[in-house]
């Protein structure tokens, strides 16, 4: 069992079956994962068996990844897996080796017996990996070859997620491997119906949606990323307060350092939380335009509160307004990357005006605040 120890990570030993003794180190790693429940024997040796029932551990992993905890290292060993008890006629579904993609797939398949071919996408989800080409024709052909799938199933059909299509060329796969690529639905949850309909998707299955819930699950990671920057800025501000402590830590003093920290947190609330949620209802097409709109609401509310309830000066609030507007617009613009319908040409176009504007607002606002802080 030297090999198992070498890999590190999960040290739980998988129960050794009759086939395991002849497996390669890579295949052993595949078995040595906590979600593997058994093995299925095939002409190409033992294949790790998984269940469609997700455990607490799986859900917890998803939750952590959503919050950015070990998100870049949330992967499984690529290769072939058996869901339930598949045989020579069972369908083959292909996915990425991002654990969340794999879990969503097997969770959706319920009582189906199927082969799951997991490609090495470096732990990245299907759509992003397809965009980069890691979920691609080449990797698919390679994975087919080393798993010996043609010896394991009689048919020559592969079901790929539709969102893998930017990276995979179906006719090339056919030419090079003999396997026919069938693009399944976008959502794994539509797979049972797709299978039942004889590998035919409904038009709805083929359209990428960006519903409230789909936007909501993206909020934690946006929040964490933004808060990391705010954290550094807050430390700098506190340091600045220490250097010049005249009223800097006194909330009732107009030139305290807490107000700018609060304004940054306020920006994060609007830019990273409310922006994704309100996205479809904000005016304009460019995300930055939508962001400016939301930003104006945010700074208006902030100004009313701080001028009425906290002792602060007009120039102080004004300078912070500029910084907040810059931050919210920037966060809004940045959400293009998480959204499902923005194009590279479009983002380039909007950035040409939005980025200079954000930098100008941010720099000007900061300088203004700094001077009012110094001259207080």
């Amino acid at each position: 069992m030297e090999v198992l120890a070498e890999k590190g990570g999960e040290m739980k030993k998988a129960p050794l079956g009759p086939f395991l003794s002849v497996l390669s180190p890579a295949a052993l790693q595949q078995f040595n994962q906590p979600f593997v429940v058994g093995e299925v024997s095939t002409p190409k040796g033992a294949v790790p068996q998984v269940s469609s029932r997700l455990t607490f551990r799986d859900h917890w992993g998803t939750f952590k990844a959503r919050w950015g905890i070990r998100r870049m290292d949330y992967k499984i060993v690529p290769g072939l897996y058996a869901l339930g008890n598949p045989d020579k006629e069972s369908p083959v579904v292909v996915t990425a080796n991002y654990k969340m993609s794999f879990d969503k797939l097997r969770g959706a398949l319920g009582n189906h017996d199927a082969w799951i071919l997991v490609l090495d996408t470096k732990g990245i989800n299907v759509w992003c990996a397809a965009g980069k080409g890691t979920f691609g024709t080449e990797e698919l052909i390679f994975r087919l070859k080393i798993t010996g799938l043609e010896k394991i199933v009689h048919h020559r059909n592969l079901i790929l997620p539709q969102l893998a299509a930017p990276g995979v060329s179906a006719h090339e796969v056919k030419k090079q491997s003999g396997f026919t690529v069938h693009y399944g639905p976008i959502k794994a949850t539509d797979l049972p119906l797709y299978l039942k309909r004889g590998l035919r998707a409904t038009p709805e299955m083929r359209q990428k949606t960006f519903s409230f819930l789909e936007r909501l699950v993206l909020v934690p990671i946006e929040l964490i990323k933004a808060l990391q920057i705010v954290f550094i800025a807050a430390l700098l501000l506190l340091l600045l307060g220490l250097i010049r402590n005249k009223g800097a830590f006194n909330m009732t003093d107009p030139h305290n350092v807490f107000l700018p920290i609060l304004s940054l947190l306020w920006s994060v609330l609007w830019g990273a939380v409310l922006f994704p949620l309100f996205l479809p209802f904000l005016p304009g097409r460019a995300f930055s335009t939508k962001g400016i709109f939301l930003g104006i609401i945010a700074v208006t509310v902030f100004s009313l509160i701080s001028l009425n309830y906290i002792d602060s000066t007009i120039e102080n609030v004004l300078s912070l307004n500029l910084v907040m507007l810059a931050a919210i617009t920037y966060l809004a613009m940045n959400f293009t990357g998480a959204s499902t319908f923005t194009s590279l040409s479009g983002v380039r176009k909007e950035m040409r005006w939005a980025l200079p504007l954000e930098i100008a607002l941010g720099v000007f606002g900061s300088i203004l605040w700094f001077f009012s802080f110094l001259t207080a």
Partner: protein
Amino acid sequence: MKRKLVYLKNVTTLSFKENKCLGCGMCLEVCPQGVFTRRNGKVEVSFRDYCMECGACAMNCPTEALSVKKGVGCAAAIINGFLKRKGTHCCTLTPEGEGGKGNATPCC
């Protein structure tokens, strides 16, 4: 509530050469945005502004009737590209060594 989210007008680099099209319908199948429709057996680009340049159609068009400058509509990627950041940074625009090893810049 269902509302079609549409991004900027007249920006997509999608191009369609009708004379090369065999009408196989792969583009209709892979497009996640519903850009294409079929009328009288012929494929048409009916909703150009829905295109997000993912490149799925071009990749799966057997006759190269479709082409598009493929990319991710991601501001962070553009900034990273501009700053020439690679490797540890999340999105980049030009993964070095197409499909090769070491170009995996995790993200999205």
